[in-house]
């Protein structure tokens, strides 16, 4: 397990930190309120993993992959996962409500204005810069995720094959995961000679 000196808070992965519901509401509410222009998962990772230390990068990125196999918006999925991870069912509910309420109100109001007055062209100019920055956020996550996930040539190849399958072959994301996942899991399968897995005991069924 590589220790990254940049990360100040690294919680023990088996016991998520105790987080108050108010903190969850504020956290996801703020993200929901300022989540314009995409690149949101980068944003959630920076705040939840790097700044708050609520979960490790390993937990975050594997949960992200799982969320992408399932249907639905990625951002909502990862929020529900983090909420559940920290506070169970209540946490998941609070996360979902908090991340959805601000955009719901904002988008509904804009929709009403649109039907009342017609389209506002200024919003397009506003979005130009925001999406550019969102792109920068997303690109930064490529570097950080790469740093965490590459431990050998195999991992580099998986990253490239995934990218090519999605971009060039236009394969749907969940097919890519279902195709490459089993191969990668087999490659990284538990091996008895690995010392870090030694204390793990399989449940013996007699």
């Amino acid at each position, binding site marked *: 397990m590589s220790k990254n000196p940049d990360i100040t808070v690294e919680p023990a992965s088996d016991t998520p930190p105790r987080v108050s519901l108010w903190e969850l509401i504020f956290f996801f509410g703020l993200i929901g309120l300022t989540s314009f222009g995409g690149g949101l998962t980068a944003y959630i990772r920076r705040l939840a993993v790097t700044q708050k230390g609520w979960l490790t990068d390993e937990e975050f990125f594997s949960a992200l992959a799982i969320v992408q196999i399932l249907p639905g918006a990625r951002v909502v999925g990862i929020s529900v996962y983090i909420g559940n991870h920290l506070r169970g069912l209540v946490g998941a509910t609070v996360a979902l409500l908090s991340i959805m309420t*601000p955009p719901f109100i904002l988008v509904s109001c804009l929709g*009403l204005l649109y039907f009342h007055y017609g389209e506002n062209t200024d919003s397009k100019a506003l979005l130009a*810069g925001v999406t550019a*920055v969102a*792109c920068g956020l997303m690109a930064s996550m490529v570097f950080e995720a790469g740093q*965490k996930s590459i431990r050998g040539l195999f991992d580099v190849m998986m990253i490239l094959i995934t990218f090519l399958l999605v971009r060039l072959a236009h394969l749907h994301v969940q097919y890519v995961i279902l195709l490459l996942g089993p191969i990668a899991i087999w490659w990284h399968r538990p091996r008895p000679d690995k010392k870090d897995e030694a204390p793990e005991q399989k449940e013996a069924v007699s």
Partner: protein
Amino acid sequence: MIQTFGHLVALFMILSISAFGGGKVVLPTLQEQAVNHYHWMTNQQFVDLFGISIIDGPSMMVVTLVGLKACMQYGYVIAILGALVATVAMFLPSSILVLIVGRFWDSWKTSPWHESIQRAMMPISTGLILAAAYIIARHSIHTIPTAIMGLVALCLMLFTKLNPVIMIVAAAGISWVFLR
């Protein structure tokens, strides 16, 4: 009115659990249903509403506006109720699925396979993020100012601990002033 609510719930619950690969994949189906099947809006209105919806929130916030428009004929209060019904129907089923799978995944933590799957999934996740960044770049980096803003944001993220909320708000301000 009740019938419209029923149509909204039925349509969006199906779209919710069939949106494999994120919300955007069901966009063509949504357009077909909202414009040609239910005649809730014109094609141009649909495109305009999509443009509004990407301002804030997760992808597929356009369902909120489709719900709003579908019930607009009954007045603004019912329209907002319609928006709420559509949003819940779209985001609740997929969230319940994540909750169930997420709990199962977390409860599996003691198995050595958990570590294997985590390590296996991280490079795939990285590749998907790379693809997503590439797509966003193609739609957002058009001019030299936007390229500079993207690069500055990347450097700030990599080399400082600046809160991304501040970056997003600053970007909105800068483009409001200079790119208009």
